[in-house]
């Protein structure tokens, strides 16, 4: 995975709280078996309205989304992140994120920027007033800046594990497999009564 040291770009201000993953990507898109090609599904319902901000020509090319609290609540679907990524977003700024979604973002190289409500409000207002306003997210130092918003190197929260992975471009599975011995050691000491599965594809309609 490519390292993400910073994200600089124009923003889309979406000043709504509790944007759930059904709004980010409708369930029908989860029938896809590929990991790409989700751009058209992003905020699909809201985009049907010509006045919706994503449909404004001056907003084209934005790479940062600014949202209200509890962004990404509801279903765990990672398809929501794939839609954001395929559309062109590289970072989401919000006062808070739903846990599962916040974890899904860095697994796809996107940065969840948890900023204070005051900073988010300033960024939201600046971006709403000026589509060309540029936001600079320094992932390494975990600070965000925007001249038009009067925000200068405001600290944001990004958990240490996600931070480490993003700035080093690490593949999480490779990292974990280095601990194969420790995993095997745990397995050798698990209680013997724990249940197991039979590995069989049960195609026939008899009781199984």
């Amino acid at each position, binding site marked *: 995975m490519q390292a993400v040291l910073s994200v600089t770009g124009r923003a889309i201000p979406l000043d709504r709280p509790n944007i759930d993953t059904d709004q980010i990507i409708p369930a029908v898109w989860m*029938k896809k078996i590929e990991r790409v090609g989700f751009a058209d599904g992003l905020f699909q319902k809201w985009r049907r309205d010509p006045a919706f901000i994503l449909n404004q020509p001056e907003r084209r090319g934005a790479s940062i989304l600014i949202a209200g609290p509890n962004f990404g609540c509801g279903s765990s679907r990672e398809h929501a992140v794939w839609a954001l990524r395929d559309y062109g977003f590289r970072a989401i700024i919000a006062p808070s994120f739903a846990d599962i979604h916040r974890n899904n973002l860095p697994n796809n190289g996107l940065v969840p920027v948890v900023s204070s409500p005051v900073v988010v409000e300033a960024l939201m207002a600046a971006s709403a007033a000026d589509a060309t306003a540029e936001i600079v997210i320094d992932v390494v130092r975990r600070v965000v800046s925007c001249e038009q918003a009067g925000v200068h190197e405001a600290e944001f929260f990004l958990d240490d594990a996600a931070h480490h992975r993003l700035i080093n471009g690490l593949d999480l599975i490779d990292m974990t497999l280095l601990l194969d011995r420790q995993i095997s050691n745990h397995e050798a000491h*698990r209680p013997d009564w724990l249940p197991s599965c039979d590995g069989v594809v049960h195609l026939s309609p008899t009781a199984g």
Partner: protein
Amino acid sequence: MRAKTLVEKIWDEHVVDQNDADLLYIDLHLLHEVTSPQAFEGLRMSGRKLRRPDLTIATADHDVPTEDVSLALQDDIGARQLQLQIANCREFGVELHPMGSAGQGIVHVIGPEMGLTQPGMTIVCGDSHTATHGAFGAIAFGIGTSQVEHVMATQTLRMAKPRTMAVTVDGRLRPDTTAKDLVLSIIGAIGIGGGTGTLIEYRGECIRALSMAGRMTVCNMAIEAGARSGLIAPDETTLAYLEGRPRVPKGDQWARAVGYWQTLCTDQDAVFDVEAVLDASSVGPQATWGTNPGQTVNIEGKVPDPLALSEPAERAAAQRALEYMGLEPGTAMKDIPISTVFIGSCTNGRLEDLRAAAEVVRGRRVASTVRALVVPGSMRVKRQAEQEGLDEVFHSAGFEWRLPGCSMCIGMNGDVVMPGTHSASTSNRNFEGRQGVGARTHLVSPESAAATAIMGHLAAAADLT
């Protein structure tokens, strides 16, 4: 040894490595057809093996048609996904209960009924309602597809230890009130972001009095309060459910397991990060009025007035919700006409839920303006219900009796609510467009859904006597 909460005890038993975040061993990995294809593909492309096929089980639930399984072939994209699941499970040696098989059902219904869900386990699935399994005193939570691939390859997850929240419910539920009404009340009280960053432990007299099905309903919807998951400490009720079930330990192993499970409770002096206390006796049958599960009210009550909300964001959200739902403030909930009733889902699709609904409709007829369906949570539930004659009760009343699946909860399989119409649903989410484009969902208990089907407008079971 410092005092620990139940969550900490289970968590600490499963930590393999600590570095930024804990590496947690996963005792059971549940898969369904919609969030696993890309994970299997990732495994295949990187040439990695599935580490523990013996701790992995799959079923088809989100996408399956509930009328006739041959209908699956008409939806090319859906059919491809189901066929791919069979091919993937064969290739990687994973137990699968596909559409049409005797053990098929909603993933969070089949796990417990098979005896796979047990106290003290860590259980994950690419589905947020994995929280359901917490009812057994397990740490069970939803994960994204990248994490599904990680568990497949390593049988572990790198997770920051969650904060803990105690939701204590004192007193007893009124006779006319169910676990579903209780959890809607809890979400209404703590808010849809109230549990964010935490794992909720439900405690108190009222929780102890719930059956396993009731506990599953309550844990299932912890996610709607923003929590990662919810759990309830195991007790005699849990043991009674488990004993003798297929994959539950027997004989000497049972005795040793029970010995361990009895240690699974929060220590007397343990401290929670967040606490909330509610009184069960103040809860009555609920129905949501808005577009998130926290926007709930007593069925006896009225659609609230957004202007009465002081917080601007909350007021704007309520106004938006009422606009979408086509509702006026001050309207009596019981005046809202309902044209679709759905009884099912991982929240309320178990035998106990179907029995309760059947009792309400026995000898009565669904209103002529209502389309009502019952979707059993699994083939096992369906068979047991048929043995008890519940299918005939529903059929005589004018309900459609379907095959198991997620169905109208998420509307992926064609079971949808028509635009602009109102539904009463025993599922867990009433977001805009959840049950279909423009669908207007009211979340209710099975008993209330049954009463609503008879009356043609939102109603509680007591309204029928």
